[in-house]
């Protein structure tokens, strides 16, 4: 059985400065993995490099033991919410339908089945009331849910999500985490770029600590310690130790 994701010696640089340096790791199946690290650590860049959205200098990426070209249909992607123009003339359903495009090939148009599938995905994120709502009329949290529904519509086994929790309301945060756990229970693997250190322990069973270089990847209870976090965040992290569990003053 091939690993969902294997990265070997990945290096990415803008101009001369490396943004990611010699990253190698493997991800087992059915894990919910938080990617954490300070600003500029290359978290989003890692996802983009794996998905070949930006060029990497060296390195090899295997997805289910094959190149990404051959495994696109098994990969889902949620870009940062701010990366698109929400004033685009379209509605929630239409955006979710875009998740089906990868399965359609060059000339086929989405049909009734794709529409039903998309509606189901919107239902799963609690958005069935807003199917035909113009996307600019949705709140930040609702927009994020639409993005998640679109990723569901991709019907993938390996998911990359870029900061899905940023700028969403509490209800949406709960809905997202419920969905992530559901995906995990279906044996799917999800990598999530995450900022809020206070919720890491609660949300993720694995974490990946990143700061240009890979600091560590593994089960949360092993890696989410004072030492590792200090190593990842350097001096920018303030910790208030309360005996058993460290209370973290988020470095943002």
């Amino acid at each position, binding site marked *: 059985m091939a690993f969902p994701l294997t990265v070997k010696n990945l290096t990415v640089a803008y101009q001369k400065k490396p943004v990611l340096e010699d990253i190698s790791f493997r991800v087992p199946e059915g894990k919910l993995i938080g990617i954490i690290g300070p600003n500029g650590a290359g978290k989003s860049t890692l996802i983009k490099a794996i*998905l*070949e959205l930006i060029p990497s200098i060296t390195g090899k990426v295997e997805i289910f033991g094959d190149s990404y070209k051959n495994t*696109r249909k098994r990969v889902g*992607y949620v870009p940062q919410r701010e990366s698109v*123009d929400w004033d*685009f*003339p379209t509605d929630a359903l239409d955006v979710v339908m*875009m998740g089906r*495009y990868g399965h359609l090939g060059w000339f086929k148009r989405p049909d009734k089945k794709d529409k039903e599938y998309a509606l189901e995905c919107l239902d799963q994120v609690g958005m069935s009331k807003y199917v035909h709502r113009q996307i600019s009329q949705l709140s930040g949290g609702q927009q994020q849910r639409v993005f998640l529904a*679109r990723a569901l519509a991709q019907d993938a086994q390996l998911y990359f999500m870029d900061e899905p929790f940023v700028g969403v309301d509490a209800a949406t945060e709960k809905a997202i985490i419920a969905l992530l756990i559901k995906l995990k229970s279906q044996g799917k693997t999800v990598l999530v770029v995450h900022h809020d250190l206070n919720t890491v322990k609660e949300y993720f069973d694995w974490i990946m600590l990143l700061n240009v270089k890979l600091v560590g990847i593994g089960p949360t209870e092993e890696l989410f310690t004072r030492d590792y976090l200090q190593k990842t965040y350097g001096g920018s992290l303030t910790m208030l130790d309360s005996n058993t569990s460290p209370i973290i003053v988020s470095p943002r």
Partner: protein
Amino acid sequence: MNHFWIILIGALVGSSCSILGCFLVLRKMSMIGDAISHSVLPGIVIAFLISGSRESLVMMFGAAAIGLVTVFLIQMFQNSGVQADASIGVVFTALFAVGVVLISLYTRQVDLDLDCVLYGEIAYAPWDTLHIGGQSIGPKAVWGVGASFLLNILVIGLFYKQFKISTFDPALAASLGIPVVFFHYLLMSLVSISTVASFESVGAILVVGMIIVPAATAYLLTDKLSRMIIISIVLSIVSSLLGYYVAYLLDASIGGTMVAVTGVLFIVALFFSPKHGVLIKKWSRKKVLQQN
């Protein structure tokens, strides 16, 4: 009959340009349309010098090539640190200037009137007819602009979903394996071709109006991309009709009045659009205040 031909040419120019304009507006690339419409000028002149004729096909290829060079240069300057608007400004004015110099240098060989290139002369278009076996089959411009209109419909129709997703969310599109860069340059080629097909009728300057204004107006009137395209086409047909009538009444430049009408329609939509209009927004704000 000439009335009909002129209105038809105007409507075809408008429709052909505004289909593409919708995507340019949504990609926030309106000024790229402006740039291409100007910088194709040297392409037209060079194609003319090489082929020695005004046959549209050669010109279209020449212009499409220069159009792509324009986009490529703008991109290159941007990547090397020049401000986006500055690099657009530099590239298209420089290329346009080259075109102006070329025309003035080869006035004798080139049967291109600078005024005509800049402002167009749709009024004479009906007399420049195409013949097959001695039989007139209508003005050349109708066939040229009509062909570019059909080409746009065909390409956008075939790849509608690709154009849509790579406009809305290029990152997702690329991750799905859609060649985003290819579609970018395909769109730019279509813009170049439509510009060349249209410049004889409305001129290099006014063609920008046909690309941007009906699309920007349609954007104010709907929340759906497919409808935005259809509305922009309808608007440009209306502009052609009304514009011709106004020009007839005032005895003014036909291309000028047609684009002026698109501008008037834009203002009307800006104030009275039922969804995004200035007035409806004011009115609903007042209503909210009264309720509180």
